[in-house]
């Protein structure tokens, strides 16, 4: 078992069984359909054009590649879309470092070479994103290789294990063939996904949002800078965009659609399920910088006659965001807001207790209350959620503290 790097292999002489040099390594290919990390073949530049040396015909690879087959037996190379070419697709390209949660550029690729029977098994183990790979490539051919190796040993490595690497590929068909699914990325916190996506060029952003799970995409989208967010949704086809928007909180969805052209937001609304569409369309009617523009319609409200147990039942079935859970609202006749109970009170009260007995004086504002006043209310009453009630006192929606923090930070 030994480590060999891509930059050492590229350009290395390829010898046939007799020991004479027949060509030089130009590319190293993995066939993800067969094996996710194992090298399938080398592309060798020979005097007879580009030839393929299959991995099971490689006996050793350092300092030069020794093949166990004659040059005459090497097939002509025909390019295939489904193979991952390490130099073209990986070296110098940007990748997502799932572990470090950022976008990085590949300086070199490390492979593990293990002899098996009469040949060598080469597996990609990690990508080098640090100074070691950079200096190796800078000095290659200029400094004798043993001196270089000794020198590089002294540099602390900065490598990302292969399982934490998510490749970026903008062609959807090729993404399928290469089995790129952004599994690692999808497992990150939506806010981290948002940070990563903001660092990517537009085509790569689109690739990520075409591929990842709709629910994850929706949560990440809510965290992305509004300008970038609009550009991403614009680039998706309206079908896919509608699927993602459906998963978003209605208030966030309305904010997003407001940033799009009328034609586009119309198309997306049309593709959405009727239920979600109505809610979002309703929110869209209000001005963006008012309480109604900030509010979400996903909140918990129970009749004023309900007991603690009913509230807990409602909590269990609630599908909206966690932030909205902090307060349970009590409504009377015709959805009229009559009280508010904090989650804490519910947690410490007996199941049969009347909610109306636990209710506190609640704070509500009108739908057309401007941003400034909303923020002032949150500040003054130390709120976690704020109810929005219409002119008849009916509960229309709620504003959560996280929305207010976002709003304040975006203003500066």
């Amino acid at each position, binding site marked *: 078992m030994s480590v060999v790097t891509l930059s050492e292999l590229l350009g290395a002489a390829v010898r046939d069984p007799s020991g004479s040099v027949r060509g030089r390594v130009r590319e190293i290919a993995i066939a993800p359909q067969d094996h996710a990390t194992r090298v399938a073949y080398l592309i060798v530049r020979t005097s007879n054009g580009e030839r393929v040396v299959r991995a099971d015909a490689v006996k050793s690879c350092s300092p030069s590649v020794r093949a166990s087959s004659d040059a005459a037996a090497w097939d002509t190379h025909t390019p295939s879309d489904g193979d991952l070419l390490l130099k073209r697709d990986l070296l110098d390209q940007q990748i997502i470092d799932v572990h470090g949660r950022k976008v990085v550029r590949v300086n070199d690729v490390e492979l593990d070479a293990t002899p098996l029977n009469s040949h060598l098994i080469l597996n990609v183990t990690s990508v080098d994103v640090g100074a070691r790979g950079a200096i190796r490539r800078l000095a290659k051919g200029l400094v004798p290789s043993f001196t270089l190796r000794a020198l590089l040993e002294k540099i602390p490595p900065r490598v990302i294990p292969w399982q934490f690497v998510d490749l970026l590929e903008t062609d959807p068909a090729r993404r399928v063939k290469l089995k790129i699914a952004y599994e690692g990325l999808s497992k990150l916190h939506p806010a981290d996904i948002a940070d990563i996506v903001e660092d990517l060029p537009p*085509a790569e952003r689109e690739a990520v949002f075409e591929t990842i799970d709709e629910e994850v995409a929706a949560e990440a989208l809510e965290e992305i800078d509004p300008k970038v967010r609009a550009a991403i949704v614009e680039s998706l086809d309206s079908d896919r965009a509608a699927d993602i928007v459906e998963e978003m909180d209605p208030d966030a969805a309305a904010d997003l659609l407001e940033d799009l052209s009328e034609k586009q937001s119309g198309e997306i609304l049309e593709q959405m399920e009727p239920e979600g569409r109505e809610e979002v369309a309703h929110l869209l009617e209000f001005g963006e910088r008012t309480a109604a523009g900030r509010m979400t319609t996903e909140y918990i409200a129970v009749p004023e006659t309900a007991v603690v147990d009913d509230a807990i039942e409602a909590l269990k079935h609630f599908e909206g965001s966690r932030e909205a859970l902090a307060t349970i609202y009590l409504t009377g006749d015709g959805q009229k807001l009559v009280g508010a109970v904090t989650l804490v009170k519910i947690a410490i009260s007996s199941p049969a207790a009347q909610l109306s007995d636990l209710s506190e004086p609640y704070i509500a504002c009108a739908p057309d209350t401007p941003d400034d006043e909303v923020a002032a209310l949150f500040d003054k009453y130390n709120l976690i959620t704020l109810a929005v009630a219409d002119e008849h006192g009916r509960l229309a929606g709620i504003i959560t503290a996280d929305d207010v923090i976002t709003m304040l930070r975006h203003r*500066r």
Partner: protein
Amino acid sequence: MTFSWKSWKTRLLMFAAVVGPGLIAGEGGNDAGGIWTYSVAGARFGYSLLWAMIPATAALIVVQEMAARMGAVTGKGLSDLIREEFGFRVTFFLMAALVATNFGNVMAEFAGVASSLALFDLPRQIVVPLAAAAVWTLVVRGTYDSVEKIFLISSIFFVCYIFAGILAHPDWKAAAFATVTQPETLTVRNYGHVYVYTLIALVGTTIAPWMQFYLQASIVEKGVTVRQYRASRWDVIIGALFAAVIAWFIIVACAATLHLTGQTEIRDAADAAMALKPLAGEFAYLLFAAGLFNASLFAATVLPISTAYAVCEGLGFESGLDKKFHEAPVFYWLYTLLIVLGAGVLLLPNIPLVQIMFFSQVVNGVMLPFVLIFMLLLVNDRELMGTHVNSRGFNIIAWITVASMMGLTVAMLLTQR
């Protein structure tokens, strides 16, 4: 055809959304070194170098348009593309050269700040550190939008030079004529090789390498996409034309005064302002001096940050003003050192400001053809640009620009001695 106000309104709105990068990059060419070169050209040769402004502007438009188009189509900066297509080693040496070149430019900009403020009797030892601190703070503390707005206002301030030109009471007819016709061979021969040499500097200062990196990066930063690109193209063209008009007025102002009265040898741009005083009046002098200060500070702000971005993105270091110092140490150190050292050099006693200015122009000229060749290779790569590769006519103009810039640069190096 009916006139549709609505479609015009949409177009205007689209333009307003993308305006900025082209205008700022174009104006970047009229930095301290640029104003110095234009002043010298006018003082030495009167109107007889004005003809060069038209081909130089055409070349500027072609080059800037390519940079902007690459930014819009790929969504990546120039140094990113060079890294991805040409590998680590090429990028490393190019970036090293870019840092060296731009360091020279930063020095020249602070020299411009120093000499323009010296006209107001402000000592160099005080104004240079102040300017450096102001530049550093503005960029690090400001957001992209606010910084861009400051730049846009600053680039409008360049009209100072138009007024200075008008106050110089030039012979408009002669100036216009000299712009569209080449001077007689006899005149040129009388001037000798200095004429050719100034011509080189003139074209070289109009298209500086760093402007291409800056332009492409800010198109990306602004999020301009292929669909908005038509509007962005106008931003680039208008920016280049505006820059050319300013340059024209600087030449004319110096030609109508200094050249006419025989003061053909000026040391620097501040010198030109000084000499304008008795000839064109106190106001023209003030405008000229204020313009120089504005231009120098403007370029001193854009240059270091665009260099830090280009280098870090190309070599894969963390970059961005949204990162903390410890998250992107190379980025911040490079940016800070460019400013501190670039300004610090000017505090040394007996620093030859003029030579610094001159040296930075030469290095720009040497660097430019290399950057242009990379740009041309990239912009014609179908895998990268799809249908947005250069048209044949465009390629011809672009390659002629490269060839003549290389020819001019070689000629410049040969006549250097």
